[in-house]
């Protein structure tokens, strides 16, 4: 045996004994592992929060007391609305730190576009376990009023002008002591008064503690029974009080039979009969699609219409909702955000009234996994196709992450995502091109769409738990022309025509939009609709199906402007 062979054996022995030849792989990081890449395309969204003077920072309450009180992790939203009628959108942003703590804030937009806090003495500077906001002119006086949802309450504030609001919850007959989340106004009985649907979440038991792997964390919805969402019918103005009066018709309308876990809500005509229906995104159980029976009642048809479950037949953690025609087939599709270990789901409509889960083929499942909440389908670059955008934020800590004493919300933070529609509903992840929007992790909850600077392009506003509300100005290179359309009803005080369907016709294409600020999650967006028209410098005409079911045609014109369509001023169509 040669010396050399001994030496090799010795080396092998050393190697084997050291176990160094089979070194294990590096540990998986518990940090946010979503990839960061250098941008490769133009930026669409620029953070202008500071420049616009917005200094709101959400208060979810102290983290040392009742740290895992579940309403804290569901976040709060807000609204954009022109409360002072000056043509510039103002803001209302909600805290959820509990009673006698941080008060919700009202911001008035100034001439220079900056937002100034005018909360004190406004009457909407209230505190509580604040959740969402809906906006509507409930007394037809031309001024938008505010509805605030809370854990344990739903409150209505009448806009009295001069930056003053008056709470009229009790007088209006609105009584919803449950955990209310998203809410939307719509005219389900076509009487001209806006009715109200309030999604309620679940019957929470604060005494219950939860967690995984022996670590305390927020509970999942499966720990608690569901509750009934509430439908309130607007009965007009009470002659005795001069105030709007609502009646709880939940049971009478047929909604009392279904216990859900509602987080998102959107009202639209899902079956093409020109009567508004209600879609409620339920967390962890089948969604509800309440089809309007045109007699004051609704029937739940989510299962047969394909939007109750995922393609696998399983329910998902349904949260935020966006509605829009992503593939230009004339039918609105439905996008709902889900948990990190599910995919967000795009239900495409077709044939009319029936939906199919087409998430994977759309390209929207590419990109990093996230827990999504507020979302929108909006044509940001005016190329004629609706893009998809959503905010993310965990409801439990990232898998394996330990509680962070120094920064409680750090293990819940995630990065937001934006997908460009490259045509016919094929989406491409462009998050990497938008570092302002997508590189800063947050516990995202509401996402609001609004043209805050009135430049004709929809901007975004986001809210985060324990983080700043942020304004993202739309700086996308315009791929074409566009229109900003407001549809109003002069016969009822000129309020926005919630539920109207606006279709702009250009050549052979039809661009369809719904007037409904209540979608996404816990928020109310700009009531105007934004229509990207690609290379069309003019349009042929605009068809409006008004909330009362009537149809009018408005003449064509040039693009790149804001127009207001008034019911009764178009040509009536059959």
């Amino acid at each position: 045996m040669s010396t050399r062979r001994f030496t090799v054996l010795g080396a092998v022995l050393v190697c084997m004994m050291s176990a160094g030849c089979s070194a294990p792989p590096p540990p998986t990081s518990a940090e946010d592992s979503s990839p960061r890449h250098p941008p490769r395309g133009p930026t669409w969204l620029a953070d202008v929060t500071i420049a616009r003077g917005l200094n709101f920072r959400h208060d979810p309450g102290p983290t040392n007391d009742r740290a895992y009180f579940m309403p804290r992790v569901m976040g709060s939203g807000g609204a954009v609305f022109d409360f002072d009628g000056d043509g510039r959108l103002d803001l209302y942003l909600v805290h959820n730190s509990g009673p006698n703590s941080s008060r919700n804030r009202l911001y008035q937009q100034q001439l220079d576009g900056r937002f100034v806090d005018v909360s004190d003495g406004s009457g909407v500077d209230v505190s509580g376990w604040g959740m969402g906001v809906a906006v509507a002119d409930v007394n037809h006086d031309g001024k938008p009023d505010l509805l605030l949802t809370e854990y344990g309450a739903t409150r209505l504030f009448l806009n009295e002008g001069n930056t003053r609001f008056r709470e009229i919850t009790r007088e209006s007959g609105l009584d919803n002591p449950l955990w209310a989340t998203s809410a939307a106004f719509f005219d389900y009985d076509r009487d001209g008064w806006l009715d109200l649907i309030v999604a309620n979440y679940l019957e929470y038991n604060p005494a219950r503690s939860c967690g995984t792997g022996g670590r305390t964390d927020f509970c999942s919805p499966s720990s608690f029974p569901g509750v009934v969402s509430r439908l309130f019918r607007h009965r007009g103005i009470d002659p005795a009080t001069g105030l709007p009066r609502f009646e709880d018709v939940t049971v009478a309308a047929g909604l009392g039979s279904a216990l859900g876990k509602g987080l998102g809500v959107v009202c639209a005509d899902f079956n093409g009969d020109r009567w508004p229906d209600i879609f409620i995104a339920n967390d962890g159980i089948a969604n509800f699609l309440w089809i309007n029976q045109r007699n004051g009642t609704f029937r739940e048809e989510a299962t047969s219409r394909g939007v109750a479950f995922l393609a696998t037949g399983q329910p998902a953690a349904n949260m935020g909702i966006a509605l829009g025609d992503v593939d230009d087939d004339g039918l609105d599709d439905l996008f709902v955000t889900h948990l990190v270990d599910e995919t967000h789901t795009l239900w495409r409509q077709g044939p009319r009234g029936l939906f199919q889960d087409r998430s994977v083929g759309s390209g929207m499942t590419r990109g990093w996994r996230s827990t999504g909440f507020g979302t929108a389908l909006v044509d940001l670059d005016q190329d004629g196709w609706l893009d998809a955008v959503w905010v993310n934020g965990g409801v439990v800590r990232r898998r394996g992450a330990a509680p962070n004493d120094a920064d409680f919300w750090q293990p819940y933070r995630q990065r937001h995502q934006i997908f460009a529609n490259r045509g016919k509903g094929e989406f491409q992840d462009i998050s990497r091109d938008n570092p302002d929007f997508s590189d800063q992790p947050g516990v995202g909850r509401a996402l609001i769409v609004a043209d805050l600077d009135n430049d004709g392009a929809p901007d975004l506003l986001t809210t985060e738990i324990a983080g700043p509300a942020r304004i993202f100005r739309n700086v996308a290179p315009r791929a074409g022309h566009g229109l900003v359309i407001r549809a109003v009803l002069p016969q009822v005080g000129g309020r926005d025509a919630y539920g109207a369907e606006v279709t702009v016709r250009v050549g052979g294409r039809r661009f369809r939009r719904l007037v409904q600020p209540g979608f996404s999650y816990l928020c109310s967006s700009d009531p105007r609709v934004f229509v990207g028209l690609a290379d069309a410098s003019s349009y042929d005409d605009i068809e409006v199906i008004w909330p009362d079911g009537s149809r009018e045609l408005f003449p064509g014109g040039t693009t790149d402007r804001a127009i207001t369509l008034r019911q009764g001023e178009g040509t009536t169509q059959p």
Partner: protein
Amino acid sequence: MNVTCLPVGKRRWFALLLLISAAVGGGTYLGWRSRPRVVLPEVPSAGVEPAVVAEIEQARSTVLADPNSAPAWGQVGLVLFANDFYGHAIPWLEQAERMDPTDVRWPYFRGLALLLEHPEEGLEALRRATILAPRDAFVRLRWAEALLAADSLDEAEKAFTEVISQQPDNARAMLGRGQILLRRGDPAAAIPLLEKASSHPTAQKAALSGLAEAYQRLARQDQADAIRQRAADVPPDTPWMDPKIVRISVHQVSRRGRLEKALNLMRTDRADDAIAELLRLLREEPDFTEARLALVRAFIVSHDLSRAEEEVQNALATDPSHPDAHVLAGGLALVRGDIEGAEAAYRRALEHRPSDAVAWFNVADCRLRRNDRPGAIEALKQALRYRPGFVVAHLKLAEMFLDAQQWSAARVHLDAVDRIQPNHPQAVTLKNRLPNR
């Protein structure tokens, strides 16, 4: 003594050999002494319950003792997986697979862990698992379902079909294949598969939902409606039983995991075993109120009301604001005929959880037993304020209004029951008492 000496040449060789051996041995020893320490992947510890930490540490110490053992590495992965530390489990399972590429458990559990956040890698790991265990239907079906979720319909269909060829009555495979046919726009072909799958309790809701969609797409509205109603009525599907997951559940040692085990024993009518498990748990975790309340329920199921009473008082001593403890105390008071005590307990529950419609209903019951009709009506209205679809509360109110000949008020509640649960037998009976029928 006769000593034989080696020749000089051979002695030189022998000395050289000794020298080399000493050098190799010394080198080996030094190498062993200065060997790089085994670098183990991170395991969670901060904020983790001591029992879970101990379970992980025990598995981890086996790796330290024998770093070349694939089962040792894999075991740490399985313990982490069982306690929901999926991300942490991945590197341990990966190393186990590297050391022993023949054990299906390592790619299977790694695949499941990866699916949650890195689905493509998860699919690849599951694919390897199917190769290692070609006749394991559970592995293949899990892979097929993941493929279906990823819209890889061709591969998913192949996998489901393979299972059906081996097990023609496998409901899970039929459900998957039926869903694929539905996705491909062939509802007629999907119907027989989904119908068969719908007879299985674990596939019922998903299969009926698919069937309703299939009939709707075939414009067979009546059948779609009927099946939709069935789908709405059946309880949610439970997850498919997976023997591999069941096997690792012994490592679920968190107090919540142990409580779940006890509750499962209760669900399977093994109250005595549940009581034993809960008593063990409470010896170690005496302040775990939820476990104590589970114990109260187990004693009630076992008709041992005195011990139930004792434990509910213990629960209230530990956590006087727990609404469930007050509700249970109220129930026990009712059983022993202490109406006043029961009402007080329910009201205390409502102080902490005013949305508890059942507690309001029970307060109404107590008020009625104490001949306070207005108080009962008020409590029932509160119950309906929080749960407007509470049929029993509507019926009770209707009955009370009928007794008082308040016909229109009674009619309101009977109409509500009609809306919520048409043709409810008690409502039909009560309606017969309305004067103008």
